[in-house]
């Protein structure tokens, strides 16, 4: 167990957001059960007011989770000197591979939470509030995720054993790094670059086409593509974009780019990637919700701005990942 201040902060944040999420979800389920627009006025009013509380609780929990993802990566970065052989956050995560699952869970919570907030916003736009029941039932999957998040965090930090010199002999240990990262890093460079840029271009075309055409399947396709785009983007960051950013042919760390030494370039990169993904996923949601009477006007009005945002994030991401590869000082031709 490591009693680092950052670890304490993370556990506290995890605990608070779990409490808020579970309070919100439980309250939400109760509201969903009793929700009845034609029911007694006084009951309905108190449900409406509780719905506000749920929305606020969930919103804060999501914000905390998002911040906690950042803090987690930072903490992993900061405590890496505690582990033999760890050079950056990747090493800390490899020291107890549960850390990788934590990142996925936090990321998933963040994505789902973002979608839920859009859903909540749409529901509040419409006087008939047709989504109320659905949106509160949609909170249920958050509960296991939040519980898993906190539990894994505890297990992760409890399982981290810094090798203290006084109890073992010397620098003769090093953590073998055969996690996911090393597999990603080992992907062949040239095909990977081709696949990534082809995917990037295809995704951009799809966004543009969706802007022009109003066919429903287009938007579903876009959402699917957004999911793939996220995976592809993350893979490419580990596989080669990181190399160009650090200007080192062997440094694959996806987290170092969040540091000052790389001018914090990681923030816009990840933000644009996640932004494009969320905005793309929202398309499918809007398309699906179009069928619900009373919502079609609101959703079809919302589609275009979300598409434009997708396009914006896509361009930002393309620019940020293309720039160092095209104009950066590192030339990787020898590695092709």
């Amino acid at each position: 167990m490591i009693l680092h201040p950052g670890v304490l902060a993370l556990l506290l944040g995890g605990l608070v957001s779990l409490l808020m999420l579970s309070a919100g979800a439980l309250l939400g389920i109760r509201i969903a059960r009793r929700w009845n627009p034609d029911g007694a006025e006084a009951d309905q009013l108190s449900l409406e007011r509780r719905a506000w509380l749920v929305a606020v609780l969930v919103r804060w929990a999501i914000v905390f989770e998002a911040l906690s993802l950042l803090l987690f990566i930072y903490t992993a970065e900061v405590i890496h000197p505690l582990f033999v052989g760890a050079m950056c956050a990747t090493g800390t995560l490899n020291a107890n591979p549960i850390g990788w699952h934590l990142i996925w869970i936090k990321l998933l919570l963040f994505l789902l939470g973002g979608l839920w907030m859009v859903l909540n916003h749409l529901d509040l736009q419409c006087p008939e509030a047709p989504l109320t029941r659905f949106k509160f039932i949609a909170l249920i999957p958050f509960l296991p995720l939040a519980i898993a998040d906190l539990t894994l965090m505890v297990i992760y930090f409890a399982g981290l054993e810094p090798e203290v010199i006084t109890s073992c002999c010397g620098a003769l240990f090093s953590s073998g790094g055969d996690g996911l990262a090393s597999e990603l890093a080992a992907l062949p460079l040239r095909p990977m670059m081709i696949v990534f840029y082809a995917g990037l271009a295809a995704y951009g075309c799809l966004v543009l086409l969706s802007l022009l055409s109003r066919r429903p399947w287009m938007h579903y396709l876009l959402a699917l593509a957004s999911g793939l785009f996220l995976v592809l983007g993350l893979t490419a960051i580990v596989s080669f974009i990181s190399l160009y950013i650090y200007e080192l042919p062997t440094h694959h760390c996806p987290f170092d780019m969040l540091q000052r030494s790389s001018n914090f370039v990681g923030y816009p990169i990840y933000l644009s990637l996640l932004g494009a993904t969320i905005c793309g996923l929202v398309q499918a949601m809007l398309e699906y919700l179009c069928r619900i009477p009373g919502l079609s006007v609101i959703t079809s009005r919302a589609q275009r701005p979300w598409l434009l945002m997708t396009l914006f994030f896509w361009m930002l991401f393309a620019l940020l990942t293309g720039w160092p590869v095209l104009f950066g000082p590192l030339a990787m031709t020898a590695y092709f």
Partner: protein
Amino acid sequence: MRYLKILEYALASLLRRPGKTCAILVVYTLMIVVLASVLFLTQALKTEATTMLAGGPQLVVQKTMAGRHELIPVSAVEKLVEIPGVKAVKPRVWGYYYDALTGTNYTLQGFDTLANELSLLNGRLPREEGECAIGAGVARSRLIHLQDELILIDYDNIGRIFTVTGVFVSAADLLTQDLVVMPEGPLRQFFGMPDSLATDLAVEVYNPNEVDTIANKIKRSLPDSRPITQSELLRTYHAVFDWRGGMMLALFSSALMAFCILAWDKATGLSAGERREIGILKAVGWDTGDVLLLKLWEGLALSLLAFLSGCLIAFILVFWWGTPVLGGILRGWSVLFPALRPTPFIDFYQLGTLAFLTIIPYVASTVIPAWRAAVTDPDEVMRAS
């Protein structure tokens, strides 16, 4: 626009209730000061340890016997120099000395093994028997200065007199505070250490990246030895300081709880005036969401103000006043250290952690009270006469 307008209103409404605002602000700030001091000091100590070790040898080889540290034969030097990649090997003579007079520990070091970095010396280094140079902490505890005499009891319980020829005034305080330096020969006599043995061996290597490999080779050629690399020492120091800082934070978490209860109480206990005000706002057309936004802004403004002032106060406390009480706890056993003046720094990670530790509990404990206020019935003001 709506957001900014409501922010403006929130700030004005905080100023309109100075008593309540101040009460929560003072407690909030106090809590942040305490936590921030712990964090800043922990970080400062880690930085200090890093600076201190940076001047030391890259690799130290100790001998172990029955799992305990033993004196190493000087003859091992020859074996080590033969290992490829090793640039130089130096036997070091040093040890600890418990001073019963002041109840403190000194580190006695042979002069030949001192790193050159210790140039920040007031006076000169000792040259012959009966001379020594001391750290500022030693000077302070014994109330002695340049050219005064330092009396230490040797291994045979005989008092020996040393003339102080120099006092260290190094910036890296931790390194030299408890140091007493004298030439190697007299030190061996003082400790009763035979010439064929040394405390440990300092190894210098050509390529710092290969230090682990060389440590491996040393371990193989001298099976009873324990090679310790600099990075490992650093790791241990970090772990120790982090652990202490974490313990302190864990202790203060009870204070955090108390604070949350207070925040809850302050936010729930809406005064009659506030209740009325929110009722009026609802009646003139503010929605539940608008009042929630108002409360959000109020909370954020308070948090930000408390956070900034708390950090500022902690900064001054740690880096100018040297935190008398806290410092002692964090640094550990020795009484020699308290006069530490760490180098000021600002670390965004620290601030982020601090924000996480303080703002999250505050926000969380005001969510429900804020919501309660926000769902006030708009027609309450109509019915109240």
